[in-house]
């Protein structure tokens, strides 16, 4: 089928400076059991193509779900209309772009395919886990779910590039909410952080089978817990909160399209400016951050980005020094800076823009117990539940589901509503401990929103737990 679409495209494409076709086929299945009731099984299939044309200095695109000759011909005409309309008024010097011809293929590693378990068995598993979440009368809302996705892409250019990629994703979820006398507290299986590439092996790899009783018990514990204390304390963040900290205060500020101003009307700008690369101290010497497509199970591992650039591991921050932004070929050309292969589109109907892919904080040398042991008066926080940051990605405030006091190196009482706030530009310089490889977890963010028109995309973050000094923390009312 993809070959037939490619043949039609090659036959129809006009003689222009550049012309590409990106075909995306997505299939999703969502299974959920809520309050012990199987929810409607939902499947979806989305299939379409994006055509991009560069012609005489103008660039236009057109997206169509009609993959027949008539549909592709019409899309080509629409893309050329916009290429003509933008001629002489386009922000990007198209003649400067890297247009090397490439070919290749990428496939998600899958050990236990989704279909190796029947629908009934999968629903049975979710029923069992859902029932285990209802541990007490005070649990008023509880849910277990699996969201499986299969995505195939074909990227071809008129001048000979041909790239095919095939992805398999699974997002397991568990949630329990406890309520008593006006107080509500929720606990989850890492939020959406356990989204990974692969098959049903992800359930075992992430500890899904053991999680439900713990989640229910923790929701009940939170219900009776005191509020998080307020003050300036040392903080140890678990990997499923580090995900959000990296995402908001390293990932977004380093997106080159934000630095170049494309997002100023919507997602925002960045406190990072182009002249900072190469020497700016972003964090302490313990901070090492990579763009890393090499963890096969991580959500945004891929062979090529959506403009055909091959993905390879790069340090963005090394020993605390800012080295390289998150920018694809177009942004690299505009800024005159090196970047990475991160030009990504959320679907066939959106043009690629600079996104995070796998953005990881590399492991250090401390065990989790070492991090606690080095904390005299502090807090341990797990699992993000609230996030807010300014449009320059500097002033942030984040909240977590679970908090525990650390006193004299020992983990102690549970506290509810743990929040902390700070400035990105200062926070990472107070990084004073990084967990080792054993504590390093491959996680991600299932829905990162950005772009005009809007695009929601999956990104990966892997991190160990980390210790930060002198953080402003506080609780609820």
């Amino acid at each position, binding site marked *: 089928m993809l070959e037939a679409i490619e043949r039609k495209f090659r036959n129809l494409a006009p003689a222009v400076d550049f012309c590409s076709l990106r075909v995306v086929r997505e299939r999703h299945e969502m299974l959920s059991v809520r309050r012990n009731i199987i929810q409607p099984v939902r499947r979806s299939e989305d299939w379409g193509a994006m055509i991009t044309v560069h012609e005489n200095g103008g660039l236009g695109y057109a*997206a169509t779900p009609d993959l027949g000759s008539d549909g592709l011909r019409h899309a080509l005409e629409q893309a050329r209309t916009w290429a003509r309309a933008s001629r002489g008024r386009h922000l990007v010097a198209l003649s400067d772009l890297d247009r090397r011809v490439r070919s290749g293929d990428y496939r998600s590693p899958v050990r236990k395919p989704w279909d190796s378990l029947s629908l009934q068995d999968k629903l049975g598993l979710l029923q069992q886990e859902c029932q285990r979440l209802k541990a007490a009368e005070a649990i008023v809302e509880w849910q277990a779910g699996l969201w499986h996705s299969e995505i195939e892409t074909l990227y071809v250019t008129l001048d000979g590039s041909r790239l095919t990629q095939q992805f398999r994703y699974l997002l397991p979820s568990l949630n329990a909410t406890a309520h008593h006398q*006006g107080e509500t507290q929720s606990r989850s299986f890492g939020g959406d952080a356990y989204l990974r590439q692969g098959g049903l092996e992800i359930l075992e790899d992430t500890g899904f089978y053991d999680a439900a009783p713990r989640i229910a018990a923790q929701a009940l514990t939170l219900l009776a817990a005191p509020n998080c204390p307020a003050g300036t304390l040392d903080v140890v963040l678990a990997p499923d909160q580090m995900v959000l900290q990296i995402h908001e205060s390293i990932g977004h500020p380093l997106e080159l399209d934000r630095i170049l101003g494309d997002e100023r009307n919507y997602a925002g700008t960045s406190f990072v400016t182009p002249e900072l690369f190469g020497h700016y101290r972003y964090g302490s010497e313990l901070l090492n951050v990579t763009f890393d497509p090499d963890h096969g199970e991580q959500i945004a591992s891929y062979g090529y980005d959506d403009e055909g650039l091959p993905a390879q591991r790069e340090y963005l921050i090394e020993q605390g020094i800012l080295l390289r932004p998150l920018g694809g070929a177009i942004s690299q050309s505009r800024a005159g800076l090196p970047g990475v292969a991160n030009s990504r589109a959320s679907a066939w109907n959106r043009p690629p823009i600079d996104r995070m892919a796998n953005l990881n904080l590399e492991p250090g040398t401390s065990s989790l117990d070492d991090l606690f042991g080095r904390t005299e008066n502090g807090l341990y926080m797990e699992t993000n539940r*609230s996030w807010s940051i300014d449009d320059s990605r500097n002033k942030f405030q984040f909240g977590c589901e679970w908090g525990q006091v650390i006193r004299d190196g020992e983990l102690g009482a549970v506290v509810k509503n743990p929040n902390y*706030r700070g400035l990105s530009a200062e926070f990472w310089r107070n990084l004073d401990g990084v967990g080792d490889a054993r504590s390093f977890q491959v996680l991600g963010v299932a829905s990162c929103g950005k772009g*005009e028109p809007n695009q929601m995309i999956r990104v990966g973050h892997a991190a160990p737990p980390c210790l930060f000094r002198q953080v402003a923390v506080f609780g*609820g009312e």
Partner: protein
Amino acid sequence: MMQETFHRLADELMNTLHGNEALTCSFNGEESAFVRFNHSQIRQAGHVTQQSITVDLSADLRHAAAEITLSGEWATDRARLQELLAELRAIRAQIPEDPYLLYATDVCSSERIHPNQLPEATAIAEQVLDAGVGHDLVGILASGPIHHGFANSFGQRNWHSRASFNLDWSFYLKADKAVKSRYAGFAWDEAAFRDKVRMASRQLDLLARPARTIVPGTYRAYLAPAALEEITDLLGWGGFGLRAHRTGMTPLMRMVEQDARLSPWLTLRENTAQGIAPDFQAAGFIRPAQVTLIEQGGYRDCLVSPRSAKEYGVPGNGAENGETPLSLDMAPGTLPLARVLETLDTGLYIGNLWYLNYSDRNAARLTGMTRFATFWVENGTIQAPVNVMRFDDSLFHLLGDRLLNLTAERELLLDPGSYGGRSSRCSRLPGALLEGMHFTL
């Protein structure tokens, strides 16, 4: 064209049903031009055609649903849908009854097709580029028709088509100092657009003054409608749905369990009659013209989806499964817009807020940032732009005991959002004068 194709495909599907099978089909489609601007030039420009159908096949309370993209090519779509129906039958056979399945059986057909009055998007883009000359303009133009449809095996047919534009843009002065504007509607008026550009230019002049950094504390404040929209949007996320209320997850729980009240100025309605979203939903139910959510500060009704209606044994009111408002309407107050600065006297004029979330959902405590045009006002006169600040405060203060008045004039704010597809959501909001708003960072 999309209407004819959808109804023809739905008819075909209905003709192939077996025995007591029931089928609902809902349709979403758009033909949109998107032009993205940066530095008063075009960054990305193109066209998106998309259409999808969601079918839900049921019999004896066993059902399964699927959504597929339609190509627009008749034979291809017909074949895909027949395959899909067979797939759904196979799923149905493997699952138990769904006790909360509810769909409309009383036939209530409708057709609302508004004539397309939009000029070519290339012509609008030309005017935007002209307006950007001498400025640093950044933003997005979306333009074209949006379609929604519904059909079921009981004979109900609904269709709603409307062409709209939404230009969401900013003039930047430097760094994060900018004026954000929105011009949206159904017929492009060049003179109205030029007025918006002139207003934005005037505010830009004010931003050129040296910026002031305020220290954390509580300040008297005025929230322009676009700023208030950020608060009502957050509140809409789990605030008004019946499911959120019955599971203790609404931030308004204190209004339900402890008789807490917001300000008597505050009346909020889901006003479908005055909105731009269709009045039918995915299970075929017709939304009432209005649902009063909060009346003079007291909690009134929830938004109730068909599924929640069945689960909790209450009448539904046409909400989709998310139970979020689509056409939120806040009643006006008595403060004339022209007297806002004078009445504010000394404090913050906040044009926009940004990135709101809960710092304590249970207590309806919110945090977020100021953004774009926010000014320090003294003695009723704008003095200086203010560097971005983080607020952290309870909704029961902001729209409760510290809400002094709302403006008599309101703005209709069409949502520029386009995740998945262009939004048909809107809000009609006044501005809000607050005795105090607490800033922390």
